[in-house]
């Protein structure tokens, strides 16, 4: 398995999208590319399983290294472990679904698809790079298209939202860059290489400075309280596919970075700051949930609930146990699929009713059973129904968090547990109001989902159910990766 394919394929797709002539060909090219990525992600998954089955116990598989900038010790170093494979699968799912739901984009179709594919390129590159410089490079690639996607194809206060999002994310990545440079210049090998760094012991003084820089920098991406305010505005102004990518992929870049970069190379720093991380993430969980209760716009509801759900990711990382970290990664995958689906459904509803205000619609189940069924499924997933992915991830985080016997972490876990009630409240408020009750006048002629929407929803639902019904495969995939981090931590 050649990992460069994961970068080349989106690149080729992007070029193809630029070269073809009309909108229809653009869509076909993008869909073909997304499908190929989808297939490739599964090929990677099975190649990974096969390699592990043959007894390859290396930390990273399929490693590749090209010298990029030798005098600065920067190399194009790729490799995957279970965590990366899980994130790549997530990306592939979201990309294909995102391409499918944007089938009706008419404004500057070519540019739209180009940016989507570019974003996916950044995400793939980010997840497979083992060199921090390359990682940062791909992170930036993934940020910029979002600005344009929101600014050009968005709705509502799109300029404000696009500016806010781009500035906050750029601010986050600036912190990341400073942190990376700090690590780079303070380690004895002057290296950007993740594996090499993980072998070194970075001085504790450096960790005390660089860990918060990196963690907060990545934390901005994954809605670390109080730097989460780009989430609601950004998500609600973005076009459907944009929201899906933003919540499904971009927010995961941050979580992955917090885990793989900040915590992995600076475990002592993580230990020192664990208390703060836990406090902030619990605040994010509860406060996001309560703030969601008051929202009236479907997209805002999902955006705030993302703040709450991403709090679990950070909580899992902050708790620093193998189980909780596994749970954090599972929550990333689960939330990625779920929130992408949620935004897709909201997009579908909006396209038909031309409103996203919960108060302005009711009884839609009568007119569009498929879409509303999907809404129910995703709502139930969000509130953690067993059999769907959300439950598995949250429970793993809880179980992992509870492994600490100290009172502080106990209280934090209990508070986080309480959020599942609040989640139930706001999800049910939104879903039952939209779906049930008497049909709003004027909506009698609405049509149900079209083929592309159905396909997109089914793909994401398949992912959600695959995790929810049989979580062991994801657990087996992720937990060795978490184990490695824990070993480094206990060393």
């Amino acid at each position, binding site marked *: 398995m050649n990992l460069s394919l994961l970068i080349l394929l989106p690149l080729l797709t992007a070029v193809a999208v630029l070269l073809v002539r009309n909108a229809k060909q653009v869509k076909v090219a993008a869909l073909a590319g997304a499908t190929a990525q989808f297939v490739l992600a599964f090929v990677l998954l099975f190649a990974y399983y096969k390699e592990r089955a043959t007894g390859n116990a290396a930390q990273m598989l399929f490693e590749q290294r090209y010298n990029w900038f030798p005098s600065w010790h920067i190399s194009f170093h790729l490799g995957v472990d279970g965590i990366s494979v899980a994130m790549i699968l997530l990306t592939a799912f979201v990309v294909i679904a995102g391409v499918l739901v944007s089938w009706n984009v008419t404004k500057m179709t070519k540019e739209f698809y180009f940016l989507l594919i570019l974003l996916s390129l950044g995400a793939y590159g980010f997840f497979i790079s083992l060199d921090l410089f390359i990682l940062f490079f791909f992170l930036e690639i993934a940020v910029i298209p979002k600005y344009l996607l929101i600014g050009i194809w968005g709705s509502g206060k799109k300029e404000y939202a696009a500016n806010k999002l781009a500035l906050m994310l750029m601010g986050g990545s600036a912190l990341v860059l400073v942190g990376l440079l700090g690590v780079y210049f303070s380690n004895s090998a002057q290296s950007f290489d993740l594996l090499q760094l993980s072998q070194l012991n970075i001085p504790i003084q450096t960790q005390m400075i660089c860990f918060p820089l990196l963690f907060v920098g990545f934390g901005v991406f994954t809605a670390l309280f109080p730097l989460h305010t780009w989430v609601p505005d950004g998500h609600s102004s973005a076009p459907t596919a944009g929201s899906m990518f933003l919540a499904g992929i971009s927010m995961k870049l941050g979580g992955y970075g917090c885990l793989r970069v900040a915590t992995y190379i600076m475990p002592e720093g993580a230990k020192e700051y664990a208390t703060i991380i836990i406090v902030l993430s619990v605040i994010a969980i509860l406060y996001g949930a309560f*703030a969601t*209760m008051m929202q009236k716009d479907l997209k805002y509801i999902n955006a705030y609930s993302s703040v709450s759900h991403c709090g679990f990711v950070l909580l899992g990382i902050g708790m620093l146990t193998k189980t909780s970290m596994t749970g954090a990664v599972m929550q990333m995958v689960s939330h990625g699929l779920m929130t992408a689906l949620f935004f897709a459904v909201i997009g579908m509803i909006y396209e038909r009713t031309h409103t996203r205000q919960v108060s302005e619609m009711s*009884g839609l189940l009568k007119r569009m059973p498929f879409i509303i069924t999907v809404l129910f499924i995703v709502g139930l997933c969000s509130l953690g129904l067993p059999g769907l992915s959300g*439950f598995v991830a949250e429970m*793993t985080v809880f179980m992992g968090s509870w492994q600490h016997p100290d009172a502080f972490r106990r209280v934090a876990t209990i508070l986080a*547990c309480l959020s599942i009630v609040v989640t139930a409240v706001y999800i049910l408020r939104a879903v*039952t109001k939209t779906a049930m009750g*008497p049909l709003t006048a004027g909506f009698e002629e609405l049509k149900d989902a079209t083929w592309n929407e159905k396909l997109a929803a089914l793909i994401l639902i398949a992912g959600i159910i695959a995790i929810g019904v049989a979580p062991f495969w994801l657990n087996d995939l992720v937990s060795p990766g978490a184990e490695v981090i824990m070993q480094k931590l206990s060393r």
Partner: protein
Amino acid sequence: MPNATYIALIPLLPLAGFLMLGIFGRKYFKNTSGIIGTTLLLVSTVLALYTAYGYFFEYGKVDGIYQKLVPLKYTWLQFSEGVSIDMGIILDPISAMMLVVVTFISLMVHIYSLGYMKGDERFPVYYAFLGLFTFSMLGLVVSSNIFQIYIFWELVGVSSFLLIGYYYDKPSAVAACKKAFIVTRFADVGFLIGILILSFHSGTLDFNTLIATLTSPETAGYKSAAAASFIGVSALTWGLALVFIGGAGKSAMFPLHIWLPDAMEGPTPVSALIHAATMVVAGVFLVARLFPVFAISSPNALSLVGYVGAISALIAALIACTQTDIKRVLAYSTMSQIGYMMFALGVSKYGGEDGLGFTASMFHLFTHAMFKALLFLGAGAVIHYIHSNEMKDMGGLRKYLPITHITFLIACLAIAGVPPFAGFFSKEEILLAAYEHNPTIYWIALITSGLTAFYMFRLYFNIFWNKEAHVHGEHKGEGGFAMMMPLVLLAVGAAVAGFIPFGHFVSSDGKRLETAFHLQFSIAPVALGLAGIFIAMWMYKTENNKPDKFAASLSGLYKATYHKFYIDEIYTFITKKIIFNLIGRPAAWIDKNIVDGLVNATGNGTKDISEIIKGFQSGKVQQYAIYFLVSVIGLALLFIYWWK
């Protein structure tokens, strides 16, 4: 050993029905879905009976003790060493008994619904949901792992949610399904935290290991659980109490019962299945499942169970006396009866004669499932006939609905504890157990049993006697064979189920328990029951103003019970006023104004600063030159004199 495949098929067949009807029902099985669902469940029922027979009479008993068999176990999610969620099947007396109860009642409801729901637009969806519920409930009862039970617990909750909200265009149904889900969810958080506590100390999630660890004082797990304490209560007691909160939520125990009466918005067969016979006893089942831990290691938690059960039984019985919606009366009666089961567990001890309460509780669960399902289905037939839930629209129906009348009467006698109907035997055992171990609870139970007889016959006389109802529209009869057959079968069950020697099969420690029958002891409850019946007859058999007078003489109490002791209002106050206004709204406000305000202030601050410093970029060359020279001089000074 039992064949695991057969047992696994019992829950999986309804699941298959759910998937098939849920995905394709709308298109391909518009009319046949009822038959499909019923057939699948029939197979399940047969398998369940076969399994129960095999367990009780063939392989279950070793050396006179019923064993806990685990024929199937599959690791589903490994958390850490030893701690994993396993999907498995446990076979012991209570799970075998529950398998039979759930499949049987579910089958009855499936058949009944063929008639009741006929012509409904979403017929396939209805059967799909029934299948989902049955699957979840069966999965719950055979769970071998405490987390597995939690998983199915949630699934049961969601299927209940879906079925309560089945008539989704009725706003009251929507509100009710939301309320049911959220209230039980709240309780489930307690359950979840309880699981976390228990699993942390015992180092496992598996029921058998967990019970073994936490009941033997020499294990490390027991020691740590008993030693750790919070506000003077040991972690073990906390864990069990929290698990019980989960059970109390699902079983509608005071004060988490508020969802149950509202849940009656669902179709009546669903109320019979979920909110009377099966799901609501899940809490009782959960306590029974962990009973050894409760009884041996934490008597405090167990007495909590007992008192909560007793209080719920009394309060529900009081409220039931004044309600006018027949399904609500039945709902409160359900709550009251479950209170019985709970306190029966609460007064029990582990093992031997002292374990009578456990047996009695399970026995009552069994008989209650029969007669309460029957009551609901009978009420369903009445509602089907009269198109109303209100007592005032009914009366004199015995002429129009003869079969319903007879079966309903049998059920009422059974619940009132009149010998020789099923309820008499199980209630007798419960009262005996309470009498022996906790006099307070005994007296509460005795009063409740009198009230039960009164409100049930109030219901009975109001429906079938009293004034002449003005039945309008065409007379459709009793709803045909599909609706009558379950009534008759359940009536037979309600009449004779009491003669099963339950203690031989189900007891707290698996050993055979002989339940003695004390004639002198049963005089008091039976007399009270009969008194309740006669009072109800005197007041309601014919139309008169006695009830109003009676109500007027007790106006304060009457009003309080009529308004269900204002518990709903208290909850509304807490949720709307406190949670929404004091937490939710400020959170949203803070986010919009303070957190977001800070972000915007940063943005605006940057802009303001740039507004200030942009004056330097005046476009005037000479100014630039001056800045340049001054800076050069400044830098030169800096480098020469300061930065040696």
